[in-house]
């Protein structure tokens, strides 16, 4: 568990103590100058590498006819559906499993504690090796998964990347595999932040596992769950590496998501404006998510 997760998971009750900024009354001359100096590097990065590229991108994709061209393209519509499925299934399955598993890791058994370092290995493994391995594990008949299926059950495994649904499913499984430990540890940190007395009180009242989860754990972790889900949604909508390495968009670009399709347009088809437009068309979905995230973060820390 990293302290990043510990902090992300720490509830408002821990963080909200009365605060009086020392410079509250007036940030006088030199102190004000220093404060400005301290935020200049970040401001420069933000404007130079976020605002400017976004504006440049929007300017490149300003022509409305680009969007007509996109809608008319069946590949784009497919990529849109794929992105929705990939994010919708991937993020939710991952978050729900992470929430359940974090409870499992709270159990005091040595074999569960011993599992934890192995369980976080996918997170420590860089994504290129991980996804390349997934690709080779699934491809053809000599892949590990299909030879396992043949040896253990005598079944001939499917060709994973010739069927759109199987290929999309493979991408989602690889994605969940890579990021499940990160979120599990975040929720684990969140659970450890719940005072022990609450568990004891619940135990005295005789609430079982299920009722404890629904009436105690979930309400307490609800906001953390929301923040993590939104953050993960934003990160997943822009995910390029998983799809580009696991299924490579196969069969015939039918599992491409917006990010891989946009890059494909821009660099393989030499139509950068079209590529940008394909990606920027996700903005109507991204902005509301970011706004809700901002709200959710603010309810966690009222003092701002």
């Amino acid at each position, binding site marked *: 568990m990293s*302290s*990043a997760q*510990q*902090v992300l998971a*720490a509830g408002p009750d821990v*963080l909200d*103590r009365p605060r009086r900024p*020392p410079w509250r009354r007036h*940030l006088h001359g030199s102190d004000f100058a*220093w*404060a400005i100096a*301290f*935020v200049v590097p*970040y401001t420069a*990065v*933000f404007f130079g*590498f*976020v605002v*400017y*590229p*976004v504006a*440049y*991108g929007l300017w*490149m994709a300003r022509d409305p006819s680009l969007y007509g061209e996109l809608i008319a393209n069946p590949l784009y519509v497919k990529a849109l559906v794929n992105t929705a499925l990939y994010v919708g299934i991937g993020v939710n399955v991952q978050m729900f499993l992470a929430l359940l*598993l974090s409870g499992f890791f709270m*159990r005091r058994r040595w*074999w*569960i504690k011993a*599992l934890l370092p*192995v369980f976080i*290995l996918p997170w*420590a*493994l*860089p994504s*290129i*090796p*991980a996804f*390349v*391995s997934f690709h080779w594990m699934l491809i053809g008949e000599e892949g*590990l998964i299909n*030879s*396992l299926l*043949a*040896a253990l059950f005598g079944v001939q495994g499917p060709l994973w990347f010739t069927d759109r649904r199987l290929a999309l499913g493979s991408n989602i499984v690889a994605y969940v*595999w890579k990021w499940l430990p990160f979120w599990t540890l975040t929720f684990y940190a969140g659970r450890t932040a719940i005072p022990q007395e609450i568990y004891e009180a619940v135990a005295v009242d005789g609430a079982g596992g299920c009722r404890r989860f629904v009436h105690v754990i979930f309400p307490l972790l609800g906001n953390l769950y929301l923040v993590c889900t939104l*953050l993960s949604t934003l990160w997943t909508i*822009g995910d*390029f*590496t998983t799809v*580009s390495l696991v299924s490579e968009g196969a069969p015939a670009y039918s599992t491409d998501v917006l990010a891989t399709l946009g*890059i494909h347009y*821009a660099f393989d088809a030499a139509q*950068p404006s079209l590529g*940008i437009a394909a*990606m920027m068309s996700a903005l109507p979905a991204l*902005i509301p*998510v*970011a706004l809700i995230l901002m709200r959710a*973060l603010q309810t966690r*820390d009222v003092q701002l």
Partner: protein
Amino acid sequence: MSGGPTSGGAVPWPRDRLRLRRILTEVASVILVAVLLIWSLVPVYNMLLIALDPDDGDIEFEGLFWPPDPSLHSFRAVLTQGYWLLEDFWHQFGNSVFIGLMTMLLTVLIGSLASFALGRMRLSRGWLLVNAPVLTYAVPASFLVIPFSRLMASYGLSNSLWAIIAANVTFATPYAILILRQYAKLIPLELDEAAQMDGASPVQLYRRVYLPLMAPALAAVGTYALLLAWNEYLYQYVLLSSTRNMTVAVAIAQFFNSDEAPVNYMMAAAIIYSLPPIVIFYALRRYMAAGLTRGAVKG
């Protein structure tokens, strides 16, 4: 246990059932551990399996879960750069390390400066900057790669490692600021006030009070930035074109996209590439966990 004795023979029932339930729970948890172990290790095992294959060609398992005569031949090929796609492997490895370390340093520096100014000093329009990190995530990194590459070309930074570092820092700092600001709330402001009474300037406050107390969070954020740099592939793929300036991530992807390149060499390179972050991650995990005792700076 609460069920009262209704008639003589029915007394031990609830206890038996309780015991049975406990045993079942234990069995289920052992099974779950086994499943999670297999789930976590199969793709890693697959890498090893392919890398140990002695053939230079394609993989052929034919139901074998261990190569008939495993060899370290492919690892030797990578270590000695004995294949044309691996010619600059160690140079490229150095590039990856350089990008990772610079991303880490700059993220920690920029993130800690900004979080200090925003959290500890009262900036009148501070909330604007506080929301900027979240806004950054409204547009995913991959969506910006096209304008970013054009921009870098106009700055004369195309095919430069610094372009990659700039991109990594851009997308690592928001999360860093988020985490650092939350963690900083655990440090009482009275400390700052006391230091100010003693005449400490903002710079001294930052260096002598803020940075030392924030060490665990800085380590966590630094590791996050390093792992982000090590995970990143798209910007390196788009921006770095010459073999000398490539990183290992791009080199592996080159293998991946080539039809006749030996898979076992690629997997050996991938395993070697995976080692540094895994070592750093597990080494720092302990240190970070030690910093988790949030009561350490109770006000």
